[in-house]
Every structure is written in C-alpha cells, then in structure tokens.
C-alpha cells in the first residue's frame, strides 16, 4: 500500500500526523505522544526533522518555534546488562544534584513513558 511513513520505528505515516494535528495535537510533545512518533528505538533520529517541518507547515509556525522533543539518555539503546556491569570498587560516584537554574526550563520540557498505547 502506498504510504509515506515518517516514523519508521512506529509506522506513523504522514497522513497520521496530519490527522493528529487536525484533531488538535499540534504541540511537538503532544503530537509525539499521541501518534507515537519519535518514541521507538531510534528515538526520533530519523523522523524528527520531517515531522517538525510538517508540523510547522501545518500550523503556520517557524521551525524554530517547533522544537524537537528532548534527547534523553541513552543516545543509542544500551543493554541493561551493560549498565549493570560490575567493576572496580570505586564504581559509584557521589551523585551531584542538578543545577537549580535547570528547573525553570526543564519543567517545560516534554517527556514520555511511551507505554501502553494499546496498539502494535
């Protein structure tokens, strides 16, 4: 079937994005959560630009006003066994608390647990 798939990881098509925006999910974060785009193994590396451009075009905004969703770790998927790997005694650092200046902007950054959307 002829589709333009934008998010290859989740099979989100261009038509899907248009529909979602038309329904009112026209913020990059809510669009992401509603369609599932950018929430797969590549975490948007392949699709975020195309989706940003389409969203900007559909809503009459500048690209700069349609930011990509936050890039959280890991930058590429990592095996849990690797993260849990045991090493030398000094393996655990003292945790340093984040900069207070981060809170004001951080709370407006989007995030997701891309879970339970109930579909393939």
């Amino acid at each position: 079937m002829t589709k333009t798939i934008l998010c290859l990881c989740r099979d989100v098509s261009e038509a899907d994005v248009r529909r979602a925006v038309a329904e009112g999910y026209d913020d990059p974060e809510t669009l992401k959560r509603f369609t599932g785009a950018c929430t797969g193994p590549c975490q948007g590396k392949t699709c975020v630009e195309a989706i940003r451009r389409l969203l900007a075009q559909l809503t009459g905004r500048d690209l700069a006003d349609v930011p990509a969703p936050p890039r959280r770790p890991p930058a590429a998927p990592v095996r849990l066994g690797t993260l849990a790997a045991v090493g030398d005694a000094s393996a655990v650092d003292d945790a340093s608390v984040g900069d207070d200046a981060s809170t004001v902007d951080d709370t407006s950054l989007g995030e997701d647990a891309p879970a339970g959307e109930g579909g393939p």
Partner: protein
Amino acid sequence: MTGQDRAGQGPLSRRLGHTLAAVDHTPAVVGGRLAAAAVTFLFEGRPMTAREGDTVAAALIANGVQVFGRSSKYHRPRGYRCGRGHCSSCAMRVDGLPGVRTCVTPVRPGMTVEREHAWPGVGHDLLRAAELLSPLMPPGFYYRWFRHSPRLWGALERALAQVAGQGEMPSREAVERLAAARCERRAADVLVVGGGAAGMSAALAAAGAGAQVLLVQRGDRLGGGLADDVAAGSALAADLVARTAAAMRLEIVTGADAFAWYEEGTVAVARGTDLVLADPAAVVLATGAYDVGLPFPNWDLPGVMTATAARRLASRYGVLPGSRAVIVARDDHAYGVALQLLTAGLEVACVADYRETEDGRAGSVSGHPVADPQTLRELTARGVDLLTGLESVTARGFGRVRSVTLHPLGQPGRPPRRARSYACDTICCSAGVRPADDLAYQASCSGSVVLSATVTEASGGPERGAGLGAVSDAAAPAGPLLAGLVAGAVTAAEAVTQGEAAGKAAAERALRV
C-alpha cells in the same frame, strides 16, 4: 547506460514506461574486498560467507539478502538504510540478542543471525495483512474503540500484545554473556567522542598540548565520513588516522558507543557488552550528524537508503547496494556521491534534485546553481540523467524498490513537464544533515546546546536541518566543546579547523584544573 536494454528484461519493467532496463537483484561485490579473509556465519541456519572486516549488514547484502526485518505495526519490509547505527531498520537477532544494529556490528566467525518481527517468516510475513486494516486504524484509534466495553478492550488488548512487532527474549547464552559484562572507569584529561576528521584533529591537538586524551569511536576503525569519501577525503583521512594512532598520550578505543552524559558529569560508553565510564576534565563532542530524511511514498522499502549509507557500503566494504540506482537529492553532496558510486561499479540512472535551477531547464549543466560543474560534466558523460525541480517522488515495489517516478515542478507559462520513471532497485537519498547533538543536549543544563566560544561558528547551508538552535554559552565551564558536523561544519577542512580549536581549548581547560 540509461535507455539501453540489458539481458533479462522482464515484463514488469516493460510496463513502467519511459526508461527501461533490466534490474538485477544480486548486488555485486567490488574489487579488493575479495582479497580479505573469508569468514563463515549462519543466517537463519544457512551458512554464508563474509569477508573479514564486514559488518553483518554488508555481508548480508553481498549475499543477496534484501529484507532485513518488518516494521512494528504494519509489518512493512525494511532493509539497510542509514549504515551508521542510527535508524534501527537493519536490526536483527544476532547471537541470541534482539535488536542488534547489523550495520555497525562486525561479523565474527560462527555468528548466528536471524530476522525478527514476522510470522511465519520475514520473507513472507502474513502479518503484513494488518496493513489492509490501516484505514480502520488512524492515529489513536484505540482511544475510541471499546471505551464502553472494558471486557472487549481487555480481549483486544491481549490479542494486540501478541501481534505487536517485538523482539524475542534474549537466549540464555546471550544473557550469560551480558551477566559477565565488566565496568571500568577511565580517567583522562580530555575525552573526545567521535573519531572522524574533527575528532581526530581535536584528539591530536589536545594531546599535542600536553593533555592525556581518550578518543572513543563507535565504529571499528577511525575515519568516519571522511574515510568513506574516497574522492576528496581519503588521503587526508589516512594521514589523520596514521598520526592519531602514533600520537603520545592518546588512547583510542574503537567499537565504543558513547551513549550518555549523565548529570554527575560522567560520560558512559558501551564497548561491546562492557561499560566504560569516563570522568574527563574536558570533553570534545565530534559526534557528527544525522541525515535529514526526505520522505516520499514507499521510501521505507528495502533498497531506499541514504547516499552516505550506499557510499559506505561500496567504499568501506566493497559491496554494491544494488545494481541500478536513482539518487534523490536536495543538497550538493549527492553529486559527489553519485560519482563515487559510479566509479565503484553501480549503475546510476539519474540524479534527481528537488531544487530548481535558475533557468529551469532540467538536465542543464550550465543552469545548475550549486553543484560542482566538473562533477556534473562527468556524470552527464557517463550517461546519468540530471533532473532538477521536483514536485514529488514516489517509489514502487513490494519486497524491494522496483521503480521510482519523479514528478517535476510545473513552471508558470510553460508546458507541463512529464513525469519520468526509472526501473531501479536502489534509491539513494541525500538531503543534508542535522547535528547529532544528543550528548550535548544531555550535558546542557537549560536545554540549549552549549558551544564554546572558541569553536568557529559554522556557515550552514540551506539544506541544514535546524537543530536546537545553537546557543553560545561560553560561561558554562562544564559544557562540551563541539567540533565538526555536530557544530555545523560543512567541509572536511572546516571540521579539521574546528577540531584543532576545540582540542586546544579542551586541553587548556583540563590542564588548568
């Protein structure tokens, strides 16, 4: 050559009209690759021959495998795409581990490779029928279905869980291997992430300034995009690689994927199954860039890939991605790559550029506004059609690309131009890049990319994807220094200059502490 028939032309290609040629689906193997030692591995139980140094993906393509997996919702066939471990389209189950990115995984003797996400098999996946139901499945369809019938939703939900495309649990052997994973901490004055032109330059500059340098590179060798760029880059790359390997106070770790910059300031690197934690005094990120996608109908078919992925396959592994390619472009880079692929032995039927020429004449060398005239002349001399001014592109094929149709832009006051179709089994897309700024983002405190004031601002072309919008924050001492494509460099020379500046600044920062 375009327009000429070749033996074996089939009825399908006859129906496509315009430019016809037989399309041979067995990718060719190029030159010196056959000199490398043979390595045997198992693909779905069948023994296959690879060459030492191959990635799993390169070996599979050389052996004629085209469909690498199936997509999660519609079970659409997928294949080799980005060639650099970004997109996950090439992921397979390797040695009992699900989701292994075959394009960046070296083949080992006796390796077992299997495809995932299909039933009964990836070659003929009956679950593809799910796509026929797609009109019933608009985005968020499940939020509407069964909202008044919790029992029906419960039953559907369990059924969906079964067919949703997912990986199988890892094998016992794979789990044992992961359970034996080790963690080591590495101290260094300067950590450089990325071993391309910018990364190597930064590492050399930092080491030269007296810092102890740790350079991590995802792939199995240094060089990055530069090494793949046979025409312009390889002498420069060879020189950088040699100097980097020989430098004092410079430790190189390959096969090492830096995946996180945590709040504590530690950079975490996955090397195989092992974990390397680095706590450097200064960090240079030379992480390169991602290809900006150029979506068109059916661009997710096997055989559609980025131009750099095609080039890497040919120049690094000596494997052609297919037998006949069309290049779809929105940048200048595509033309050089087209020439390199031709030289490697791939038939290139056409380079189709979305951008319009000034005088609007398709295929006019003199009218082309940006690409290097010498390159254009050579392409034309070798029979490559040059089209400019595209409205849209459509690919066709079922398990693989079979043809592409190019729809030109209409011009006011002129008769409309005809669509052109080409039979092909490979489409290479080139539309510019956007910075691979993941680690920079993670490192930043306020959500903006932190650039050092000493790194040169990039010129940036029209095809550059807008990243975060680089914000200069010279006052953040703990932030990373960016160099190369990730900092907006366009040419290899710029990447080298930025790398040197970043490396020097990083060394100063580290040694000052």
